[in-house]
């Protein structure tokens, strides 16, 4: 790659330059994974900023474009510039940057990219080695490709919710986060990095088309269900219970929250019984194995619930784990964060941000001991690196930059 903008970066992806031309969760998260491991990532925002800046969480719930937690989390370690791609001068500027990049990650509607004159073919015309990674709810082709959509629409189009999350006859559920965006962003990172890695082999850059819905419909839902559907025309729906065919295998309430109660194999069940004080009911024939226990789910869950309600989640987890039974506490966010485990592993990292101060960030998603990753700098302020990128990297003069500012291109 051409000269780097920032001090030489270490990390497994050092030397790569990636443009983040996305907003919200999916594309920014994918680009941040590249930044985590040393790529130089330049985030190009429209003049009004990434829409995530206008979403909380904010400290004290006070909206402030420079203090969005949603924006911060997905944009650490990036350089931030503004560029109005809908203006010819803005498009030209972006294309100059594209010439110097290895990849561009985006999550705009395909029609929007075409309207801006920034389709993959147009980008490849200025840089044939560019890998364009597009991450959208539905993908670049197919009847829904021009549909408006969000994480919610994508997730519920996969079968995952109707099959696996919620009570029968009540609404199917998303997981309380951006599950489709995260699944899509991770798939895009893997396939996109492969496309970058293999450029010499395959003869140049290419367009990597990720549909968040399709990735989940295939690799999560399809893996487990599509064979049965295709061959036997049969299919299942959600039950509201963790595992309907074996028991115990579900989330149960305890004195201070909830536990994931799992005791399927004979040794696990024995361990659980021991922890519960070998109650007499547990010796009943109907509780002999995981299948018979599931057939008598109402009875057994009531018995176990009586016991869990009297005990604390960490106590249950510790004793069951010691007895060979894979029960875990359903950690709240606070409990997950405060548990000594992640601290003993030095997972969290402190990062500085001009508006937010020092923040304790989640650590690198995985560990590469020879080329460590993880956040080192906070997310950029809006347009923070305009001078460095447009001036320093592209060599625009001060008067040129001034003119671009006056035209509201940057």
């Amino acid at each position, binding site marked *: 790659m051409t000269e780097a903008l920032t001090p030489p970066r270490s990390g497994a992806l050092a030397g790569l330059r990636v443009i983040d031309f996305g907003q919200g969760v999916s594309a920014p998260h994918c680009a941040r994974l590249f930044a985590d*491991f040393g790529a130089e990532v330049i985030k190009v925002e429209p003049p009004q900023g990434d829409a995530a800046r206008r979403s*909380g*969480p904010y*400290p*004290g*719930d006070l909206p402030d474009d420079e203090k969005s*937690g949603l924006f911060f*989390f*997905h944009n650490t370690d990036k350089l931030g510039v503004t560029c109005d791609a809908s203006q010819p001068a803005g498009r030209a500027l972006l294309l100059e940057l594209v010439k110097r990049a290895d990849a561009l990650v985006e999550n705009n509607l395909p029609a929007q990219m075409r309207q801006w004159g920034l389709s*993959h073919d147009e980008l490849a015309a200025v840089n044939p080695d560019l890998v364009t990674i597009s991450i959208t709810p539905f993908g670049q082709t*197919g009847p829904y490709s021009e549909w408006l959509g969000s*994480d*919610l*629409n994508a997730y*519920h*189009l996969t079968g*995952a919710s*109707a*099959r*696996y*999350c919620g009570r029968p006859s009540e*609404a*199917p*559920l998303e*997981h*309380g986060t951006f*599950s489709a965006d995260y699944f899509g962003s*991770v798939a895009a990172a893997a396939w996109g990095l*492969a496309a970058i*890695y*293999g450029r010499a*082999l395959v003869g*140049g850059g290419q*367009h990597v*088309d*990720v549909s968040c819905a399709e990735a989940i419909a295939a690799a999560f839902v*399809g893996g487990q269900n599509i*064979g*049965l*559907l*295709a*061959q*036997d025309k049969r299919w299942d729906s*959600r039950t509201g219970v963790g595992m309907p065919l074996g028991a115990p295998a579900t*989330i149960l309430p305890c004195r201070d929250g909830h536990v994931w109660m*799992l005791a399927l194999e004979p040794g696990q069940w024995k361990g659980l019984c021991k922890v519960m004080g070998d109650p007499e009911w547990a010796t009943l024939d109907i509780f002999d194995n995981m299948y018979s226990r599931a057939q008598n789910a109402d009875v057994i869950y009531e018995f176990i619930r009586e016991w869990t309600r009297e005990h604390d989640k960490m106590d249950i987890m510790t004793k069951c784990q010691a007895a060979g039974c894979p029960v*875990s506490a*359903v950690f*709240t*966010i*606070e409990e997950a*964060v405060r*548990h000594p485990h992640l601290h003993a*592993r030095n*997972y969290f990292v402190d990062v500085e941000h001009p508006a937010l101060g020092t923040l304790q960030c*989640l650590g690198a*998603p995985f560990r*590469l*001991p020879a*080329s460590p990753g993880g956040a080192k700098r906070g997310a950029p302020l809006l347009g923070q690196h305009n001078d460095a990128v447009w001036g320093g990297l592209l060599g625009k003069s001060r008067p040129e930059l001034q003119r671009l500012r006056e035209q509201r291109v940057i």
Partner: protein
Amino acid sequence: MATPLPLQGIRVINFGWVWAGPVVGQTLGFLGAEVLKIESRARIDMTRNLPPFAEGIVDPNRSLSNHACWAGNGSVTLDLKQAEGRALALRLIAESDVVIENFGPGVIERLGFGYEALRAVKPDIILFSMPAAGLSGPLEHVRTYGLSLTSLTGLDSLVGYKGESPLPVENAFSDPFAGIFGAFAILAALNHRRNTGQGQHIEFSQQEAVMQMVGPAYMDYLFNQRSGAPKGNEHPTGAAVPHGVFPCRGDDRWISIAVDNDAMWQALVAAMGSPEWAGDAALATLAGRAAAVDRVHAQIGAWTRGFDDRELAATLQRAGVAAAPVLNIGDLLDDPHYKARDTFVEVQHPLGFKETIYGSYVKMSRCQAAVRPGPALGADNERALRGILKLPDDEIRRLEQSRIVY
């Protein structure tokens, strides 16, 4: 000649079992790597015994869910309980670039395939370990199922109906998520190897990787000491209202609607025929709708109830509203979008049956991913033993007879 795939020439030995580990290999396989999963009839992976089976014939080579989840991995049958089996695996590793494992911490070392042992036969080897919660720390040896691993991240505490207890997700979302994520980790290490000549031992704690998914809730905890709780299908950060799943005509038919700006709200109001309740000026802004979210959702649900989900989604899309049908499993093979994108494909298995698996769920403009049927036990023995290790026929026969190759 077809365009080569980006990972052509990369060889992977996969000790991964059940679901997450095989998906790591599958992802690299789609992208052109040669992936040899090491397994054995001496200890058959439980997922090979899961019904349904091809043509209803119970056989560890015919489990349809196993095949879909493992497709792309090759299979070499070596009994690792026997010293000779382990020695053969090590010889294969010496000819490989990447080793994948998802045993519990310490197991790979006891088998003789720890990082130092691998480095001795292949100095720049990349070893990828994906334990539940890492290779150190108080929860190093925590026992979880794929189903419950997410409980360690805080994610499970966010799933459920608004105001209620957490509800379990009924399958291991984190298995394929971590599997595909793991392929990214390996690619990063391959890039580092290309830059420096160095291999390494990747530690992929599934807990730490999956915690990415609670990032937004984590930031709220960091800023405001709030831990989050189930809130149904409402927007995770409250940045869109309405944002939910609403009933439609028919059995278990629903539509998802996500309105993330005020203009889209006006479009929805118009599409609903501008009912009086929606004309409330307070609802014109996100803050106003958020304050009345339960009422707004109830009203929309009362309206959607009479419509066909697909027709209504199309109507709302034409009006400029983000809406889509909620599919159940029975819809997947007929859905025009997945059909158009070849999401699911029927393949001919070498053992003589047809099976439907998922294909290349990511599309690349320059090359076509390698989609193969699920691996039969030992399907790649020939390639590995004769092709890579150059063993003579009588030696291979001896290994088979003594059930080292088994």
